[in-house]
């Protein structure tokens, strides 16, 4: 376990992404077994944060079909594969118990196993009270910054928020709500909704974000949570357009008979 933890630390340092990828997925290519070569992994929404491994639920019926070109998930054989109940959420009283499910994210977070084990377990390196931030003002967190250098350049809130506005001070594998109580990484909407109330409302009503499964308003759905699509540390990145990280598109349509290429489309219909 410790070896794994160190391995992931190195990865995280190299990649610089806090939520990079699950340790298991990173380890996969290292396995020399032919099974690993056949393994098809695709991403659902955010590359690097929503990977899913293709497998057969039953013969000829995969859980997911992947795009051979872009590695995007293109078809769900089972929309509830690997999900757990979402848990309580204000405003969702009408949905029957167990009909709102999510895919747990905690296990995908690379540093997550370490947080609770190595440091914030009460056993690891002693962080005596002085290193814990008092009050709400930002203070340097040298250990964390050493592990994840990008933390100094947080692309969220334009300098008006910092780590401890979202992360729990003592339970680092938890997020934090307005009252200072911990929130699971599986329920980031409880955190994000603190500021983005209009988005939370739209998300709750199914207008914002994505849900798969049954379309009826009381049907069983897998809800995609905030962080499955958005990287909270990096929402202002310049290499994107309208809030979305750029993706490779799927192939364009077949040209109809007689058309050699589609270059004419780039011209304006009538020259100006």
């Amino acid at each position, binding site marked *: 376990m410790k070896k794994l933890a160190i391995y992931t630390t190195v990865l995280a340092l190299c990649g610089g992404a806090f939520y990079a990828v699950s340790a298991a997925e990173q380890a996969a290519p290292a396995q020399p077994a032919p099974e690993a070569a056949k393994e098809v992994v695709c991403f659902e*929404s*955010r590359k690097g944060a929503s990977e899913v491994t293709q497998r057969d*639920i*039953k013969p*000829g*019926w995969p*859980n997911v*079909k992947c*795009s051979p070109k*872009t590695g*995007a*998930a*293109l*078809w*769900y054989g*089972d*929309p*509830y*594969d690997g999900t757990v109940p979402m848990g309580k959420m204000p405003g969702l009283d*009408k949905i029957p118990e167990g009909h709102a499910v999510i895919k747990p994210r905690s296990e995908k977070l690379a540093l997550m196993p370490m947080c609770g084990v190595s440091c914030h377990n009460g056993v690891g390196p002693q962080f005596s009270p002085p290193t814990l931030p008092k009050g709400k003002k930002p203070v340097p967190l040298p250990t964390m910054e050493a592990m994840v250098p990008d933390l100094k350049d947080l692309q969220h809130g334009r300098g008006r928020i910092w780590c401890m506005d979202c992360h729990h001070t003592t339970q680092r594998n938890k997020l934090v709500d307005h009252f200072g109580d911990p929130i699971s990484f599986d329920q980031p909407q409880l955190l994000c909704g603190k500021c983005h109330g209009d988005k939370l409302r*739209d998300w709750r*009503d*199914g*207008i*914002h*974000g*994505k*849900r*798969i*499964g*049954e*379309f*009826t*308003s*009381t049907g069983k759905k897998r809800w*995609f949570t905030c962080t499955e*699509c958005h990287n909270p540390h990096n929402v202002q990145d310049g290499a994107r*357009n*309208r809030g*979305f990280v*750029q*993706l*490779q*598109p*799927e*192939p*364009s*349509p*077949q*040209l*109809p*008979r*007689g*058309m050699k290429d*589609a270059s004419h*489309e*780039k011209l*304006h*219909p009538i020259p*100006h």
Partner: protein
Amino acid sequence: MTPNETLPTDPAKEQSSECPVPPMSADPAANVLKTSRRDFLKSGGALSLSSLMGTAALMSQSGDAEAAVEWAEHFQKNYRLMTPAEKAEARLRLEKRYSDEYGKKVSVDTTEAQPGVLMGYALNIRKCIGCRRCVHACVAENNQSRGTKRPGEKIEWIQVLRMERGKFEQEKMNHGYPEGLGIQVGGNAYTPAGAVLEGQYHYNPEKVPEADATYMPIACMQCEKPPCVKVCPVRTTYREADGPVVIDYNWCIGCKMCMNACPYWARRFNLTTPVLPKEEMNPVTHYLGNRPRMRGVVEKCHWCLQRTRHDRYPACVEVCPVGARKFGNLLDPESEVSKILERKNVFRLKAELNTFPKFFYFYD
């Protein structure tokens, strides 16, 4: 949790519990024979042409059951006018043919529209990044032809239009149409923005969304007043009670009048026998939905009837990485589509044609 217990998509479950018609037996041929004979005995003189032909063919040449089944398929009625028994028979006939053809157990669902459901669709045009995942999810789900050898062998129901953002420029201020006296009558300072007829369908950049473009997916709008239905000379395409405009592929004569009438270019023609590899074929089908088509008939989006009749989201909704696609019951005020109509600004494409689409574009 085993997926088989919870999946509404599980073909086995669909057949056993959700379909009102009898489940497919292990040997579909035997079933066809049984059904036909039972019909024959029960309904006596009130036999349809199709079951008569089917029964006769099956009885006379039992050795070549498949040929007999296909032969009977040529004489079946318009799906809408079939009795429940004829529907069940047509369904078994197709299940048998498809199962033989694709080497796996294929189910052909005939679930009817449910009362209290009127399907509606909404697309957040601000969110769309033009990745075309919906296009390919649709193909994976709906058994379209996917050949690559000849143009026309690949059919996609969704088109994604790339439109230029456009801008007005200082340098172009004096571009225009100078008339005789040097007095400008018009300007040309613009580059087109948001012009549907000036867009691109074959865009292929490294990455989307591009900074200088917006995207608009277009597919069947499932109009309330569909012009395509009006022009059909054989009534093979019609609006189902729960909203989608469907086609009975076995009744279509391929006259293509509907393709002339559709203002959204939603309909595609099977120029040749669809190229559908066995392993890629989706065995969970609906009679009016994604069952494999034949040469010479028209097809189009039907909002994944094989899914939506069992409450499942259409395939395009499920794969949209940005959640731009929304689907729901317009009669349910709590559905996502109803909420969008209540809360957001929506518009319909070519509203001036009074086709009253149930597909809404919106933005937030």
